[in-house]
């Protein structure tokens, strides 16, 4: 039912969507030409693959994993070891195929570990993935021969045969390698959702008991999907190893798994394209936001908390809801409301962020004195006027936001009612 609603109203041809995705991947480095943006674009491609693979578990299978970094990380480690073998001349393998080695090694690891993990579903599943994630992470410190200890294992991607003069030395060349992998993996994972196994996975998520009655083994469905998810995670790990030319034990850590979870959720697990949004946000947050402010983890946590509470479908579901309104031709009425909501929430954010920044400044940069520059303004972290000012801004923002929100809700529910009756009317016709 809901699936039909999703695809029916706005039926853009699927070829158009995929073609534009390819064009974006192709043109992005030509539009953003700085070396920082090339690095970020490469990381985004890697993140897109890993978040999509994570969503096979979370969104499509209802399996909340806290240990997905095990598979991307192990893929990365095996890829970098393979790269070093290639560099030593022991293995005649083109560099461009090394991510596939990462994928298959993650697949093998998932065949073993996934068998234990997928014995359970729901909450016990989450706890077991956490336990196995910890297991692998502690092992990474125990076997410095394989994991390289604190320093990690480094490699050199400029090696092996050089077809058409492609050495993978410049960032732009590795970007296009990543882009090709991103496109193929995204297409493959989308195709997976259309296979019988992908459909059964959705069924297992929604009602495992009924699946069992129909004659399928839900454990087997989970196990196979888990292995497939690990394969794609391994490819992304291998790409990351090529991109950074190093793999440290951090890539298998629980923090990394947590980041995958957080951003896949923020992007929206209910839709196939949700994790892509999440992956782009992840790189933006890790590279730009962490440069911008020391409090970025706090902001991230707050955003996550609010999203779970008020929009559990993530950004993708917000987009989809508005597309639905647009399909019924009512989106135009909401523009003014959205504008007011945006302005008021920016005001709230301004005040709150001012106070958060002052607190962090007091704690971390006390030696620099109480003055700090915040968005071009000079704030005094020890003066009352700055605090009162920020608090006032936030209060004004909160009150006006609440007023705007009430008005918006009224309009929104009227439109939803209209859509519901409209659907009934069309069905009756």
């Amino acid at each position: 039912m809901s699936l039909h609603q999703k695809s029916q109203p706005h039926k853009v041809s699927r070829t158009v969507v995929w073609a534009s995705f390819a064009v974006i991947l192709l043109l992005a480095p030509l539009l953003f030409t700085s070396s920082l943006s090339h690095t970020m674009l490469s990381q985004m491609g890697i993140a897109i693959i890993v978040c999509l693979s994570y969503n096979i578990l979370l969104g499509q299978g209802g399996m909340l994993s806290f240990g997905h970094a095990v598979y991307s990380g192990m893929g990365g480690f095996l890829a970098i070891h393979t790269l070093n073998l290639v560099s030593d001349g022991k293995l005649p393998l083109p560099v461009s195929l090394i991510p596939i080695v990462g994928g298959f090694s993650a697949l093998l690891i998932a065949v073993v570990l996934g068998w234990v993990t997928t014995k359970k579903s729901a909450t016990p599943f989450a706890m077991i993935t956490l336990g196995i994630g910890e297991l692998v992470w502690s092992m990474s410190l125990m076997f410095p021969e394989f994991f390289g200890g604190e320093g990690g294992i480094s490699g050199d991607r400029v090696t092996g045969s050089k077809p058409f003069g492609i050495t993978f030395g410049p960032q732009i060349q590795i970007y296009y390698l990543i882009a090709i992998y991103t496109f193929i993996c995204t297409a493959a994972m989308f195709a997976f959702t259309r296979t019988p196994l992908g459909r059964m996975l959705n069924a297992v998520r929604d009602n495992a008991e009924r699946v069992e009655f129909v004659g399928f083994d839900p454990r087997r469905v989970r196990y196979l999907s888990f292995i497939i998810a690990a394969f794609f995670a391994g490819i992304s790990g291998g790409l990351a190893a090529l991109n950074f030319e190093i793999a440290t034990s951090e890539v298998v850590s629980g923090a990394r798994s947590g980041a995958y979870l957080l951003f896949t959720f923020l992007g929206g697990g209910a839709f196939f394209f949700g994790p892509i949004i999440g992956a782009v946000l992840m790189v933006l947050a890790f590279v730009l936001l962490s440069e911008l402010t020391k409090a970025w983890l706090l902001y991230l946590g707050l955003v996550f908390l609010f999203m779970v509470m008020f929009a559990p479908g993530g950004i993708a579901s917000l987009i989809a809801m508005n597309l639905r309104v647009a399909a019924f031709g009512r989106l135009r009425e909401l523009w003014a409301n959205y504008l007011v909501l945006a302005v008021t929430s920016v005001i709230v954010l301004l005040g709150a962020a001012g106070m958060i920044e002052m607190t962090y400044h007091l704690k971390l940069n006390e030696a620099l004195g109480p003055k700090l520059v915040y968005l071009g303004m000079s704030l005094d972290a020890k003066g009352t006027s700055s605090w009162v000012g920020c608090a006032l801004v936030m209060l004004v923002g909160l009150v006006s936001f609440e007023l705007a929100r009430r008005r918006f809700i009224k309009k929104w529910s009227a439109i939803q009612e209209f859509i519901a009756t409209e659907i009934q009317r069309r069905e009756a016709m």
Partner: protein
Amino acid sequence: MEFFTISLLNGVSYGLLLFMLSSGLTLIFSMMGVLNFAHASFYMLGAYFAYSTTQLVGYWPALFLAPLLVAVLGASFEKFCLRRVHKFGHVPELLITFGLSFLIVEMVQLVWGTSSVDYRVPAELSGPLFTIFGTQFPTYRGFMMLVALSMLLSIWLLLTRTRIGLIIQAALTHPDMAQALGHNVPRVFMLVFGGGAALAGLAGVIGGNAFVTEPGMAATVGSVIFVVVVVGGMGSLSGAFVASLLIGIIQTFAVGVDSSLMSVASTLGLQITPQTFGFALWKLKISQIAPILPYLFLVLILIFRPKGLLGTREG
């Protein structure tokens, strides 16, 4: 013998501390179906609150005040955040506690700094309790065991011998029926969540100064108590007790054992050299693999007894 006794005593006291944490987690889980990811964060908050209140009013009032503060925080989190998410299902519930654990670590670093704080054992409890085989057993370890055991006893009495315990048990198995009989089940949930958080807070008060009070402490015990809950059997309080003691003792013993597979092999007459296949594995000392033992144990339990030691349901 000396090593055995001391390790056993230390293991039991560590195991009891783990039980203080896992009991709250299990209670919350079996009641609300929520795996509280932030449980270990409440433990950390307990330790930090105790550190600050000890400086203000001394250790003994802090022993009561800090868990109380944590309980208030936990209950209000349940009331204002968790309850709102309840209708979306279990995964968002788990996610929101995950987000909370994230925020708490960040807040703790903001308020108390990123390095460890100097939270000490009070003077009247420092020093040895008794001497056994020439090794002193610290009084504070004994105190920890005493607190944990009395807490265990009072939970048991509360759950089985009082009216509120009866309602909690009823709400545990038949929430709709309990509600129909006029009990405020959401409030019971809030109390259980706050109570579980208070237990974690209390564990933090007595564990924070026995070990280290630092922002990483939540992550250190966090995954271990999840292992305890799975190994003991989801939602089984007695299972959690057995598993806590088992894991506490195993881990304490392993830390003290200095032998490796290589030394075992050499007593059997086998020669292991760096050229032997898998030398990295042979030379590992048991004390080195101590941190991963709980997780290995988890995997073994899942293979051979998927419902846990004393669990009844297989999920």
